[in-house]
């Protein structure tokens, strides 16, 4: 399993413009579903890609390929990232996926509109995490079995959170 805290800490330390998406976002919102990796969407401007590379490169990323448990070596640098878009990687601290776009939502700027900034690692530096609304939209758009199965829980979570926020205090 990926060392979630180290990945998030490194992204924060390097001031990477990103949003946590996928299973980790689902879990951070409160779902009971498990995840093994970290998925993020990142801003594609060159300065941010430089920061992203600085954040991830120390973990020695390799391309994750089915049938190759150790992954395939590749040069993880700014040029590689700018030449590509989505990278599924295995690293010394687990699997990390960096995506340029999210199905149903779009690129980093679009995803950021659906992000909530929450205190996961630090009370002072908040982590951008895809909201329940954004997760529901993206999972519905992805339309894979593993995405569809979590939607009822996410919709219930959104309903319960809204009720808790709007209900009067006291018994």
């Amino acid at each position, binding site marked *: 399993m990926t060392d979630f805290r180290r990945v998030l800490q490194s992204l924060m330390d390097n001031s990477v413009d990103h949003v946590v998406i996928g299973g980790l976002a689902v879990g*951070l919102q409160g779902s*009971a579903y498990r995840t093994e990796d970290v998925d993020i969407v990142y801003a594609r401007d060159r300065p941010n890609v430089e920061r992203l590379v600085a954040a991830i490169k120390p973990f020695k990323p390799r391309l994750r390929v089915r049938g190759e448990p150790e992954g395939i070596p590749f040069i993880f640098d700014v040029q590689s990232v700018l030449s590509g878009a989505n990278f599924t990687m295995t690293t010394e601290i687990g699997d990390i996926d960096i995506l340029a776009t999210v199905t149903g939502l779009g690129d980093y700027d679009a995803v950021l509109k659906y992000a909530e900034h929450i205190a996961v690692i630090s009370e002072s530096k908040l982590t951008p995490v895809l909201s329940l609304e954004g997760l529901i939209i993206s999972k519905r758009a992805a339309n894979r079995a593993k995405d569809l199965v979590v939607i*009822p829980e996410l919709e219930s979570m959104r309903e319960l959170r809204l009720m808790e926020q709007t209900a009067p205090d006291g018994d």
Partner: protein
Amino acid sequence: MVYCTIGMKDATRKFLHDPPPGSKTRAAIEFGTDLSMTVRNMFVLSPAERLDRLQHGQIDLRSIRRPAQPELKR
């Protein structure tokens, strides 16, 4: 279903224990989703605690209850 409702507003607690037809929560339960851990994650744990829980495993055997095994001993 048993929920940990510590700190939850009364209206939410009542809703959760008898979600009305047509609600998303009723639909999730009918879909087969066990919301007991979800509710605890959402309303009891902080985001940092949720991260720890994800890191160290979501399945708390002491919280699992099955008809043939109503309560696991600690």
